[in-house]
């Protein structure tokens, strides 16, 4: 015996309202008209109704209104046939296939559900009920029935239906405000009008889509992932999932979006400042670890560009959360002078297998088998660094340095600012042609080739930027000859590998204000 199934109230085909528990013993059978086994048992149920109807309720619950009528007419049924076209009762009663038969006996306890048709089980149940009710056995030609027939999948488990039913059911994990969009409204235009969009079309976040998205994480939908600036809005897993649906994510991307949001909503990353700066900064997300392959991220040909759903929509989902929950919109808290296409999306994976170095996340203290997302606050990029001629390791390392010298402005050096260098596989080949070329050697080479005497950084008629002339006037010739590399320290140079195996084109992203006044690179392990 099991717990009594949930109460329900449904109408039968005659318009009579019928409720369970019925107050009497009851045999409830869920069925659908296009199931051969349901049609096999329909006459049996009618015979049960004839035999036991005075002492017990024998009801068929049909999973479609028109199906109920078909079953009635096809088999000449007189037993009450209830309409569960909405499938809510089917969902609540939680069975997998039809026919599904539930017997609630005189003691009020319900027998375990019988699904499909196993003649011996049906015969045993029939004998048990006749005995319990003290009635003659139903008139059934058991010998003419097959021993066993499988049931059909219950309609409420149809993938197109089930997620909507779960979203609408009592106990649904959905808490977000539901917005009813009238049939006369264009849903896409409505979402644009509400300001939900980054300017591109959105996938409507219907409850069933959000339910499917939530299946991508084991976290409770009401867990708070982060407090999102500038509104300091609590971002629940559910709210992140809604925005991930709109961005076009698949459910398996959701853990990456969640980890990325955790990373950028830290004091270190300073998402508020990144949003607000007139420099137009935006997070650049780099994904490492096994999840890259599992969700099909692009780390090779066109890794930094269009064409891969995971790369494109994970970055976009993060931006939409920041926009919709955080409230950071251009003209509001986002004060970018020019902004950047990175404010639509910027996310890619490192091609660890193509790298001679420890991957980014291992370098930052994680295990190789961890999946990790790292967020960089960047204002420009990807800026190409082109060199098809160099054949020696120090030459190509020199080129990468010269390519980085343009960050912000070539004449500005000793910058305490992050850069993210993406080295392409052909440049890696050149770097390692004579053997290992450690990252720190590359960093040192970048600093070496970009070192210029301070006098080249003094404000002049070509460019007023740099060391003020008045300050330079107080410096000795020796001081002005001091070489200054591009970066205040090699640790500001972050290096990953990505791109196609053909082409000698690396790229760099240029940072924003690095450190406590600005943003610091943050990595978060992906919960997957």
């Amino acid at each position, binding site marked *: 015996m099991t717990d009594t199934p949930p109460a329900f109230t449904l109408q039968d085909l005659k318009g009579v309202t019928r409720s369970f528990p019925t107050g009497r013993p009851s045999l409830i059978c869920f069925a659908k008209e296009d199931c051969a086994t349901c049609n096999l048992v329909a006459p049996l149920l009618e015979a049960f109704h004839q035999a036991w109807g005075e002492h017990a309720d024998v009801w068929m619950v049909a999973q479609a209104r028109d199906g109920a009528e078909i079953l009635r007419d096809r088999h000449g049924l007189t037993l009450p046939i209830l309409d569960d076209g909405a499938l809510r009762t089917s969902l609540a009663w939680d069975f997998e296939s039809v026919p599904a038969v539930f017997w609630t006996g005189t003691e009020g306890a319900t027998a375990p559900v019988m699904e499909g048709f196993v003649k011996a089980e049906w015969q045993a149940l029939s004998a048990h009920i006749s005995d319990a009710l003290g009635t003659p056995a139903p008139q059934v030609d058991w010998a003419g029935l097959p021993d066993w027939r499988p049931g059909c999948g219950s309609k409420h488990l149809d993938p197109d239906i089930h997620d909507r039913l779960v979203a609408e059911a009592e106990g649904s994990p*959905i808490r*977000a*405000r*539901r*917005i*009813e*969009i*009238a*049939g*006369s*409204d264009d*849903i896409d235009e409505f*979402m644009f*009008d*509400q300001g*939900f969009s980054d300017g591109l079309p959105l996938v*409507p*976040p*219907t*409850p069933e889509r*959000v339910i499917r998205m939530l299946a991508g994480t084991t976290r409770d939908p009401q867990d708070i992932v982060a407090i999102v600036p500038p*509104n300091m*809005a*609590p971002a629940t897993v*559910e*709210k992140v999932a*809604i*925005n991930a649906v*709109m961005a076009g994510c698949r459910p398996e991307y959701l853990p990456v979006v969640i980890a990325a949001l955790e990373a950028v909503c830290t004091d270190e990353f300073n998402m508020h400042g990144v949003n607000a700066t007139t420099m137009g900064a935006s997070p650049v997300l780099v994904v490492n670890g096994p999840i890259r392959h599992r969700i099909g991220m692009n780390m090779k040909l066109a890794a930094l560009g269009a064409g891969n759903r995971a790369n494109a929509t994970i970055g976009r989902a993060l931006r*939409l959360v920041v926009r*919709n*929950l955080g*409230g950071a919109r251009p003209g509001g808290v986002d004060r970018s002078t020019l902004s950047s296409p990175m404010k639509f999306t910027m996310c890619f994976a490192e091609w660890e297998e193509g790298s001679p170095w420890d991957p980014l996340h291992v370098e930052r203290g994680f295990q190789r088998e961890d999946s990790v997302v790292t967020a960089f606050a960047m204002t420009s990029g990807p800026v190409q660094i082109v060199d098809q001629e160099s054949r020696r390791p120090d030459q190509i390392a020199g080129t990468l340095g010269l390519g980085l010298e343009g960050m912000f402005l070539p004449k500005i050096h000793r910058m305490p600012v992050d850069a993210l260098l993406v080295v392409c596989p052909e440049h890696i080949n050149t770097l390692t042609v004579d053997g290992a070329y450690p990252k720190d050697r590359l960093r040192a080479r970048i600093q070496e080739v970009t070192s210029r005497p301070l006098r080249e950084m003094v404000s002049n008629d070509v460019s007023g930027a740099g060391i003020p002339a008045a300050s330079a006037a107080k410096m000795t010739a020796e001081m002005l000859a001091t070489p200054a590399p591009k970066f205040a320290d090699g640790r500001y140079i972050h290096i990953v590998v990505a791109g196609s195996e053909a082409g000698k084109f690396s790229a760099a992203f240029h940072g924003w204000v690095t450190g406590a006044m600005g943003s610091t690179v943050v990595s978060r392990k992906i919960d997957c």
Partner: protein
Amino acid sequence: MTTILDPTDERVPVERQITPRTGSIPGVIGLLDISKPRGNVLLDELERLLAARFPDNEIRRYAKPTFTKPCPTDLRLKIKAECSVLVEALAD
């Protein structure tokens, strides 16, 4: 009708949506003339059509003193108390 879930922090109300159309009207139908020229002509015709289609519903007529000013509070409350739906003839 499509339902979507609010992606925002829900601090701003969503714009009001059109009430679902049920095919029937309960209670009194109000017709409000804002006193723009020929608004009464439109409402006369509308009243004739509504009376034919909804013979069981009472139809009541109201008029604003002038279209140049908002509806007086008393009139607004009276309409709200007496009617379940209101059709307003807005322009001439």
